[in-house]
């Protein structure tokens, strides 16, 4: 079976899931009669399937050799997220569905205009600088938006609160993939052993120190431990893939640890986050700082092994104040555990892991260093984003405000992650083209 036909088959489970999911929500609400029920949930299922098929037809024409599993995996995640958001609020779900349409358009545009994605390398410093500017913009007056003490949003009046971290992560990965492609040889060859530790040469170590400094600065500027962990983690992952030197990673981790420790004992907002992380159920902090994480844990306990079913979780108190704050964004994973239980949550995590696995597979298949580093970097940053938010919600690490890709509500997240998907598919298509394969075999 051809790759594209496999992709088409892969879309069937996604459309079944979205139809069944909407039906479950309607049943729980008890708001529709039997006829309306099948009609409405089938309509949602049909529209979703239509969008997926349109994207599939586009891929068939534009990227016939691209990995066939990535897009269906994204469709499963996206439709699951849509059901969860619909269950919270139909208006949000409608907006989310519109963002999906815009996201698919951006996805197609990326594939059309970045067909030769390697020209991104020429603009690497521009991209890096642009990403850093984007990251710092939430601190600017008037347009900056502070949420829970972190500076993660830029207000675009009437449209959305734009989350620059989502796009900056792509820019940074593109820059690093390009920079490390050039320097990876010198980093390895020029390395010296000092006191039993392999150190990269100072000349090239310098830029890496700069990147570490950036990550720390980021921590101070946007005050978000999770985002800087995601960026720095992606940097270390790429550094490791490029140099194959574990010592570099260890040095990086130690440096990040020192910086993180220093900041978590001096910056008040970070101190609070760490305190709550250490003792999430402390009654003294429950009402304010601890409310979010404590209720995240309570919601997960309420879900248990099999969950309460779509629509079964309690999101607001009877007096209409939120019981699970930011259920559609930061805490959506807690709601997933609450409604579909540990079993459903593990299925979601497995879907992410499959996505990441396909990403790395693309990196392995790619024929040039930049493509390999780009695919590996995008996959790593994607995986780390999942780890940072799910780890935050489950209190593995302090809770921070990044989105769960393709599931959380939010335009920036959807748009950026569709661009990420487009880049992975572009790399994949190039790597799997028959002529490329043949060239690889000849080499």
């Amino acid at each position, binding site marked *: 079976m051809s790759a594209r036909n496999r992709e088409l088959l892969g879309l069937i489970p996604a459309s079944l899931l979205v139809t069944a999911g909407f039906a479950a929500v309607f*049943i729980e609400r*008890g708001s529709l009669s039997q006829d309306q029920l099948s009609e409405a949930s089938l309509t949602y299922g049909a529209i979703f399937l239509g969008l997926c098929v349109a994207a599939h037809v586009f891929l068939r024409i534009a990227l016939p050799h691209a990995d066939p599993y990535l897009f269906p995996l994204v469709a499963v995640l996206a439709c699951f997220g849509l059901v969860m958001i619909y269950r919270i609020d139909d208006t949000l779900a409608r907006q989310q569905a519109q963002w999906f349409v815009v996201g698919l358009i951006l996805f197609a545009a990326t594939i059309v205009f970045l067909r030769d994605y390697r020209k991104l390398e020429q603009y690497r410093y521009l991209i890096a600088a642009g990403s850093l500017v984007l990251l710092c913009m939430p601190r600017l007056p008037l347009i900056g938006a502070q949420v829970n003490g972190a500076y993660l949003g830029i207000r675009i009046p009437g449209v959305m609160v734009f989350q620059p971290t989502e796009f900056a992560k792509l820019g940074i990965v593109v820059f690093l993939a390009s920079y490390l492609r050039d320097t990876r040889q010198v980093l390895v060859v020029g390395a010296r052993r000092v006191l039993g530790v392999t150190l990269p040469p100072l000349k090239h170590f310098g830029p890496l120190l700069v990147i570490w400094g950036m990550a720390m600065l980021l921590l101070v500027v946007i005050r978000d431990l999770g985002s800087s962990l995601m960026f720095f983690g992606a940097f270390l*992952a790429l550094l*490791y*893939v*490029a140099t*194959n030197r574990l010592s570099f990673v260890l040095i990086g981790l130690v440096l990040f640890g020192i910086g993180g420790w220093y900041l978590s004992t001096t910056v008040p907002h970070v101190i609070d986050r760490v305190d709550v992380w250490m003792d999430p*159920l402390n*009654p003294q902090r*429950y009402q304010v700082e601890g409310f979010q994480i*404590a*209720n995240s*844990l*309570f*919601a*997960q*306990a*309420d*879900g*248990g*092994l099999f969950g309460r*079913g779509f629509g079964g979780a*309690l999101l607001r*108190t*009877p*007096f*209409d104040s939120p*019981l699970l704050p930011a259920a559609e964004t930061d805490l959506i994973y807690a709601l997933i*555990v609450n409604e579909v*239980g*540990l079993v459903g*949550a*593990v299925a979601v*995590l497995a879907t*992410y*892991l499959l996505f*990441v*696995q396909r990403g*790395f597979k693309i*990196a*392995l298949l790619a024929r040039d*260093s930049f493509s*390999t*580093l780009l695919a*590996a970097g995008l996959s*790593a940053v994607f*995986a780390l984003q*999942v*780890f940072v938010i*799910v*780890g935050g919600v*489950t*209190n*593995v690490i302090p809770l921070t405000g990044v989105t769960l890709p393709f599931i959380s509500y939010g335009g920036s997240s959807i748009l950026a992650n569709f661009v990420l998907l487009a880049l992975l598919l572009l790399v994949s298509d190039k790597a799997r083209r028959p002529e490329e394969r043949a060239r690889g075999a000849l080499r």
Partner: protein
Amino acid sequence: MNVAIMRLFAAIVVLFVILVAWTSRWSVFEAQALRDNSLDKRPLFTALRVKRGAIRAADGTVLARSVRARRGDIWARDYPTGSLFGHPVGYANLIQGQLSGLERSRNDELSGTTSELNSIIDQLQGKRRAGNTVVTTLDPDAQRVATDRLSGQKGAIVALDPRNGAVKVLASSPGYDPNVVRDPEQLRALNTDDANAPLFDRVTQGAYPPGSTFKVVTAAAALDSGKVTPDAPVLDGNTPRIVSGVPLRNDDGVSRGQIDLTEALTYSVNTAFAQLGEQLGKQTMDDYMRRFGFYSLPPLDYPSDQMVASGERGPRGRLIPVTSPLVDVGRMAIGQDKLAVTPLQMAMVAAAVANGGTLMKPRLTDKVVDPDGRTIKTIEPQEHSKPISEQTAEQLTQMMGRVVDEGTGTAVQLPGIDVAGKTGTAETNPAQDITQPWFIAFAPATDPQIAIAVTVENTQNGFGGTVAAPIARDVLASLLDG
């Protein structure tokens, strides 16, 4: 780079395993501890959204029901009969997590808590969880008579059907209106009113000296153990008599010579019963008291911390067995010494005698009805114990009939109905003539349908025959009328 990519993927798999482990930790392994955490308001909010079932009297009168709250998507509790049924019904103040009375003891049925399986089936059928209606055995007319007759005094009345244990009247005065309990300020005021203790259920929690009503227990032990017969003149009715080194007098000061048990009970002769108690001995008295239910919580469907066990109480208020050296069994036999007995326990004594020696479990609930009107649970009459033989019960019935016909309890006489009873007057403060009158009875004596216990706290020179017996008469009249 390929090896590094593979290792990187392995590292990411490890990170995801950590995520699964932590999710399992909260959702499964530590879930129970989290659900029990008082910070988590989910169980409360879920409960508030359930329409709690009604509580009804035996005739269908609504005693408690759910109404839409003024604020929020929740239900509030309304008690249409106000303070009339405050004690037996209790109150449900879910927001403060406070429940009492039947609202507490029947909380599972009222809140509709059923098995996990049933709730899954209901969910599939699209049913919203709803509470069940609890139909009680209570009789509103008689409860009103009892409450009216106690108003302005502190006291307790409990009446039940000796044949099946159904409690018809459970009145404790002063009462309280469960409608005001939802206001935390008012609840605090009720809780701190130590002088009146309106929330205190005197029927099940009031532990009083039973006075001469306890002579029924002594007589039962004497007859059932075969030590005496009703009409053998073997008891010394002269006064005073030295009991445990201290002289004991008859209430009326009359020396009655050698008398039989019937006469001793009819005229409530202290000296004769003290002699009887000493003859029976501590062990026999202990045995018979336990058979009647003393020394354990009454088997009523009522919250256990709203009931106390009856018996001798030691210096620190703890229950001590009759066999303890601290007990003066002669004085205990006439209801004095350190006896602390609830009105419910004395009603159970009367009920056992009335029901041919078989004590039925007292109960407040008749059945549980689901929201669709189907009876899902019927509380069947259950035998609790058989303290005395049928013959003993019959002999005691005749003796207690004499008490009402010609003895201390003539005030309870009802036209056309023969009542069997026993008066009691505990001297709570002899120096100021403060007494606690008692009356226990059952009627009709030939075919007992109701057993009753009445007591009034701190009356000025009141007697069981003059204060408590007339109240019992009115409640009996109301119950036997219908």
